């Protein structure tokens, strides 16, 4: 199979030559990508064969081969040592090619850094460092590069995250190449180490609490990622760089490789910091398992062992490569090389949850992890489900100190997962939560899970799947509550109008007809009736919204139709801010048993501009919602609202950009053509740009206002609580407070890119030094994230 296709083709016709070339290129790509996978032959013989094929194809396909090898270095980091060995073999056969490859890699590294692709750049640096082991790159030149990296820690007036990255790129390559570099250049390496250590001691870590999944240090502290890596490298150094986990195919080729001539890396100057540079966010290392959790199987490497680092890196890389295809991803994860020596299922589950719970956000969409875990359960039905169940149990037990955002994700994951397994779970194991304060994390979690499970099944099903003792935690039957529905409502104000409206709706009345019925509704807020008829009248809103939503209660589609059909009435009634708030209030009264319906109605009302985002924010912080303030659906609504606002601003900004580009193109054409009519075209376009500019400014102002409202409200309720606790002498840390302060954190984290734009205003207006330190701390942690 490794005979070169090129050698087989004869003298082809020109057209066939192109398709032959494409075919060969595809073939080469396939050969390179597949090496290392399960095969009848050994890895060594496959590598040797492939090296032979590539060497033979170099005359005609050199640039393609260079590009392919650079790409796999960047995109398949879990197979790092396989490809460095391949490059080593090629270099041994063709010194010039080795040199060109190194140059191409350096070019690619520079491009990645310029494009803010820091995560991929780490893999490139690691690849280069492993090339030292393959005798492609001379050790002293690699040490010199690392010297330059670590010297970035001396730079002033740059974000800490920039310095962090260069230190990380250095430290994270050492498991692969530490031994070799120390053997060749120990004095220089000691100096670099000393510089690294002093940097790590002086860097600030204000951001860490905001990124931790649990607020407790037991049973596993969640360390800041650089601290953890430093401890791991220190330990590796103490062990004299003995590292036995990494697969090193080049060892088998030592006799060939050590004959090869090495190349020197050109001196590498880290590209300077610019305004456009965006560095990776700091992280916290998620740990939930240790060697005590799998007493039967192989021992889990300790948290400060370099093996742990390498295993986790590789598993994260596999997910990064294959996240879109869950079957491949699962297969690659479970066939991790060296799996017999480690409790692989535990590592896999830990790495997946690490990503799912990562703050600010998981690397990939949440639902991917659900599907991946289901796939893994299918693939290893005898072993993985038990580990997953054990993990679920552990997560439940530690709910008291789990970050609220992470609890949200746990709820969504668990309920979706259960819906794929007929909701089977040993709920009795969790009966301890029944005797706790219903606002504390464990019963709250169970309640939210059951509510989500109901959304994926139906009410009676939920009552059936839990023991009778759990009935207090079961969700309400999601029915509509119509206040004018029964006999006792005869005495309610507006009752007769409600009946009238009901008849009108059923006989397909028009907006005008509804308006005329509503005209007669008295305004409880005024002594005289307002002749104009449409200032804020809560009773009008009440009868209209209650009756319409009740009649349209059958399904989402029915409700959406109703909103669309009577849009005019809604818009008029909700014209004022108070009107908008009242519409939301009444809608909530009707549907308080059906949070899912509330969410879709709010969404629809924003999209059809019946209410605006600020109204929703004010409604969420209103007293009517205080009882439900800690419920998940409320925050899902708020974040969805913020996202809609953000998308809206982006959309108009894009329109403006496109219009500006169009004008620029027209100008260019005019200077080329000298056409008179383009003056007119310009005018129209310029007018459009002016309008769009105004639209953008107005949208941005609305967006800023939304965040200000939200932050202001948070500060108000948190301050109230803190003051009250101080006066009463009670502890601040109630379940409500923990929830609320973490919800504030969540606003910052989930929308950090937008909020960065408004930092100055926030600092000057809201998060001033006079603020209670508890609240100010959140703001300071946020500032520290990209400082």
């Amino acid at each position, binding site marked *: 199979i490794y005979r070169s296709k090129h050698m087989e083709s004869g003298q082809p016709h020109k057209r066939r030559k192109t398709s032959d070339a494409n075919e060969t290129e*595809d073939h080469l*790509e*396939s050969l390179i*990508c*597949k090496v290392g996978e399960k095969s009848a032959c050994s890895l060594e013989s496959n590598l040797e064969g492939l090296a032979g094929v590539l060497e033979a194809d170099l005359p005609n396909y050199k640039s393609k081969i260079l*590009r392919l090898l650079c*790409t*796999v270095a960047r*995109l*398949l980091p879990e197979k790092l040592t396989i490809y460095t060995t391949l490059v080593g073999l090629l270099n041994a056969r063709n010194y010039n090619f080795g040199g060109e490859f190194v140059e191409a890699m350096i070019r690619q590294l520079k491009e990645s850094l310029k494009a803010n692709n820091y995560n991929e750049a780490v893999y490139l640096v690691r690849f280069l460092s492993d090339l030292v082991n393959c005798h492609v790159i001379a050790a002293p030149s690699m040490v010199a590069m690392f010297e330059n990296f670590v010297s970035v820690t001396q730079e002033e007036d740059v974000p800490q995250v920039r310095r962090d990255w260069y230190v990380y790129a250095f430290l994270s390559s050492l498991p692969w190449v530490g031994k070799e570099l120390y053997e060749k250049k120990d004095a220089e390496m000691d100096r670099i180490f000393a510089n690294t250590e002093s940097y790590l001691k002086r860097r600030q870590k204000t951001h860490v609490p905001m990124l931790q999944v649990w607020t407790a240090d037991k049973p596993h502290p969640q360390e800041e990622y650089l601290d953890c890596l430093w401890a791991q490298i220190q330990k590796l150094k103490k062990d004299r760089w003995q590292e036995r986990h990494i697969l090193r195919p080049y060892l088998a080729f030592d006799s060939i490789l050590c004959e090869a001539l090495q190349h020197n890396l050109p001196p590498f100057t880290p590209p300077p910091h610019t305004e456009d540079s965006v560095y990776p966010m700091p992280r916290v290392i998620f740990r939930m398992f240790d060697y005590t959790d799998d007493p039967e199987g192989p021992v889990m490497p300790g948290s400060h062992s370099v093996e742990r680092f390498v295993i986790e890196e590789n598993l994260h890389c596999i997910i990064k*490569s*294959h996240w*879109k*295809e*869950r*079957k*491949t991803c699962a297969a690659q994860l479970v066939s991790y090389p060296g799996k017999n020596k480690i409790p692989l299922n535990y590592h896999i589950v830990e790495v997946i949850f690490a990503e799912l719970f990562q703050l600010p956000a998981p690397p990939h*969409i*949440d*639902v*991917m992890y*659900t*599907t991946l875990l*289901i796939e893994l*359960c*299918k693939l290893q*039905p005898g072993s993985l*489900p*038990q580990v*997953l*169940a*054990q993990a679920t*149990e552990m997560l439940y037990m530690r709910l008291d100190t789990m970050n609220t955002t992470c609890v949200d994700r746990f709820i*969504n994951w668990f309920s*979706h*997962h259960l*819906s*794929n*397994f*007929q909701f*089977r*779970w*040993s709920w009795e*194991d969790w009966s301890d939560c029944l005797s706790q304060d219903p606002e504390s994390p464990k019963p709250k979690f169970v309640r939210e899970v059951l509510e*989500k499970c109901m*959304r*994926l*099944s139906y009410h009676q099903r939920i009552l059936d799947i839990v023991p009778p003792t759990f009935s207090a935690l079961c969700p309400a039957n999601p029915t509509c509550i119509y206040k004018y529905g029964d006999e006792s409502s005869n005495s309610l104000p507006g009752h007769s109008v409600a009946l009238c409206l009901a008849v009108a709706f059923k006989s397909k009345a028009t907006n005008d007809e509804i308006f005329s019925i509503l005209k007669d509704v008295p305004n409880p807020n005024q002594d005289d009736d307002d002749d104009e008829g449409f200032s804020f009248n809560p009773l009008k809103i009440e009868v209209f919204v209650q009756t319409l939503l009740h009649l349209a209660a059958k*399904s*989402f*589609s029915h409700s959406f139709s109703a909103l669309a059909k009577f849009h005019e009435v809604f818009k008029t009634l909700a014209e004022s801010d108070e009107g908008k708030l009242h519409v939301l209030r009444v809608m909530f009264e009707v549907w308080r048993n059906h949070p*899912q*319906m509330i969410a*879709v109605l709010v969404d629809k009302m924003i999209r059809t501009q019946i209410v605006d985002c600020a109204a929703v924010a004010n409604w969420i912080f209103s007293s009517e919602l205080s009882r439900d303030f800690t419920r998940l659906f409320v925050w899902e609504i708020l974040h969805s609202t913020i996202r809609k606002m953000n998308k809206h601003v982006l959309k108009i900004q894009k329109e403006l950009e496109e219009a500006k580009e169009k004008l620029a193109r027209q100008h260019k054409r005019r200077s080329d053509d000298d056409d008179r009519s383009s003056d007119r075209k310009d005018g129209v376009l310029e007018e459009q740009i002016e309008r769009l500019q105004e639209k953008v400014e107005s949208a941005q102002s609305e967006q800023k206002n939304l965040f200000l409202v939200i932050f202001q409200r948070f500060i108000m309720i948190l301050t109230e609580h803190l003051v009250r606790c101080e006066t009463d002498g009670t502890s601040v840390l109630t379940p409500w407070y923990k929830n609320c302060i973490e919800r504030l954190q969540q606003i910052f984290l989930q929308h950090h890119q937008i909020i960065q734009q408004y930092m100055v205003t926030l600092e000057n207006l809201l998060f001033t030094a006079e603020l209670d330190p508890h609240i100010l701390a959140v703001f300071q942690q946020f500032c520290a994230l990209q400082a």
Partner: protein
Amino acid sequence: MILMVFSGSVTAAKLDRKRPSACCPTSTISKDLKILCKDPVSELSCCRDHQFSGSKFQQEKLLKESSTMSMRNLSFYTTEEKIHELFSRSGIKTIFMGLDKIKKTACGFCFVEYHNRTDAENAMWFLNGTCLDEWIICTDWDIGFREGQQYGRGKSGGQVRDEFREDFHSGRGGFGRQSQI
């Protein structure tokens, strides 16, 4: 201790004869490798809308850009709310429930529309093949919902597939129409 959890129940769900399909995931990184683009269900299914008035090429182009998908093997009891809950995990826009042309009741299919292709792709990649109401979800790309599409095209008012079905599905009205006496 917890035993027998998270195992085997996927096989209990009903599998449809037509395989689920998705388009090849489009990469956001440049110079991608074909191996990373590979998807076991990357080909469009052979299922084509016979009422499409355009060339096969045009249809395939629309399908590759579409952000709408159809699902044809739902239980008759699967509500719009359930579909919404599940599919909103990747950003849903609208659901069009399929109705029996005569009875105007649910007859086991729907269309799910997303705001953009990416959200739809996420649904294809991560929701397709998992469970909804203990049935395996099978989605197909659709060129976009047109008015009238929400009605079944079988002679009896439901879906064509239920006309000729011979086996018994309690979630899909029992035996197929032609098999019912």
